[in-house]
């Protein structure tokens, strides 16, 4: 059912494979709280060539909940500064670890690493490119908290540079989602991606779509994208989600956000039934646990995992 060795891009996965991964995550989710020792002899290398505390912590947690260990290489003081190629780093690390999580500023870095590496490579985000584990945890959140098939969803915020939304939009199309892209013109999704998706609604006004969606997926609008701070404040405040924005939403409506947020979602939303972003962040752990097991084990067997866990508690 699942024979991928590397997790590089959503484009590598069929709909069936995505559903299989989500199903594995579902099975393993209880262990994301209690832990297990199934990967107790395994070592995961976290190679982060640009900072991403959240993704790094999530993978670190997932590996440790599986009973494995991690080693980290951060961009500061790394061999990259000494001029070592990524290719050399990969060949060195494969001698140390059983799998690699790679975060790198260059797009396609994880694909190259997967071509060179004899151990599994998981893409933890490459440049403005892909972030498949984020996409999978987003899909998992939708499946758990809303639905996956024929979803009405609006992606809001920085759709131009936002790393997560490009592969998410592509994956959503696999499940026949009805996608609205809500962004100011200067941050709208690049045309070549829109063309690739085919059939999306494009607007700069959230009020136009808010009543007709199941999921609002908010992304951070970054200050550094705007040369003029006043312009940033104008745009950011007009896209801020507050209780007022949510008047008349569907009964089962939810809000997601890959986090960290700045102020695009008012804190007053946090305690409403709509807010699912902290849950979404937690779901990153079972999804990454499932992926780590899938690439490091011969076959995915949760029953075995459970039995071991139980016996360790006996």
């Amino acid at each position, binding site marked *: 059912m699942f024979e991928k060795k590397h997790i590089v891009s959503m484009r590598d996965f069929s709909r069936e494979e995505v559903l299989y991964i989500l199903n594995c995550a579902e099975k393993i989710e209880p262990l994301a709280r209690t832990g297990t020792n199934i990967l107790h002899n395994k070592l995961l290398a976290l190679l982060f060539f640009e900072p991403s505390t959240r993704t790094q912590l999530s993978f670190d947690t997932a590996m440790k909940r599986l009973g494995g260990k991690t080693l980290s290489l951060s961009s500061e003081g790394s061999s990259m500064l000494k001029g070592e190629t990524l290719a050399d780093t990969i060949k060195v690390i494969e001698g140390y670890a059983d799998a690699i999580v790679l975060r790198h500023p260059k*797009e*396609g870095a994880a*694909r*190259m690493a997967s071509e060179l590496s004899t151990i599994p490579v998981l893409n933890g985000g490459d440049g*403005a490119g892909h972030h498949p584990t984020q996409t999978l945890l987003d899909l998992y959140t939708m499946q758990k908290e809303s639905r996956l098939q024929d979803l009405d969803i609006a992606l809001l915020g920085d759709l131009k540079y936002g790393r997560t939304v490009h592969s998410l939009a592509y994956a959503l199309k696999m499940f026949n989602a009805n996608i609205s892209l809500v962004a100011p013109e200067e941050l709208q999704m690049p045309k070549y991606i829109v*063309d690739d998706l085919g059939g999306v609604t494009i607007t700069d006004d959230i009020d136009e779509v808010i009543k007709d969606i199941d999921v609002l997926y908010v992304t951070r609008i970054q200050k550094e994208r705007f040369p003029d701070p006043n312009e940033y404040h104008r745009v950011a405040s007009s896209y801020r989600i507050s209780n007022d924005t949510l008047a008349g939403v569907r009964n089962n409506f939810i809000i997601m956000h890959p986090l960290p947020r700045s102020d695009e979602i008012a804190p007053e939303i946090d305690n409403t039934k709509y807010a699912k972003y902290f849950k979404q962040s937690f779901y990153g752990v079972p999804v990454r646990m499932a992926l780590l097991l899938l690439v490091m084990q011969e076959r995915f067997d949760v029953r075995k995992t459970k039995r071991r866990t139980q016996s360790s508690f006996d």
Partner: protein
Amino acid sequence: MLEKQKDELRVRSIKNGTVIDHITAGSALNVLKILGVKGGTHSIVSVVMNVPSKKLGSKAKDIVKIEDRELNSDEVDKIALIAPNATINIIRDYEVVQKSSVELHDKIENIVKCPNLNCISNTNEPVTSKFAVIYPLTLRCLYCERIIKNNIVEHLI
């Protein structure tokens, strides 16, 4: 018959070299670019543009004849990208010794440079550029997944 005679007058047969026939009309100059034929060239090159073609259903085609040179497979692969119907005739002593259609592969390597400056294939890493060929003629970088749809010739290495 008259038409044929006129054709023959347009460009005479060559003794040795390569005739690239059935080039998509308008692409002859790009074929020259791929072959590195510029103003200062010493080769004898004939270019015929917009002549009627039977093979292309009476649509117009271009022809390039380049003397004393046989194209290598890299050059042929590049031509396939901009003129997918082209045929390559290798001529020795006025005889066609080899006639082949260009072939568009599913994957091309080291032929097109990725336009995305932030792509790993544009760094000092030991990788060559690779693209998937998708129909109708579109290229997708196998690293960063950037799409090239128009002006492929501008991205040729």
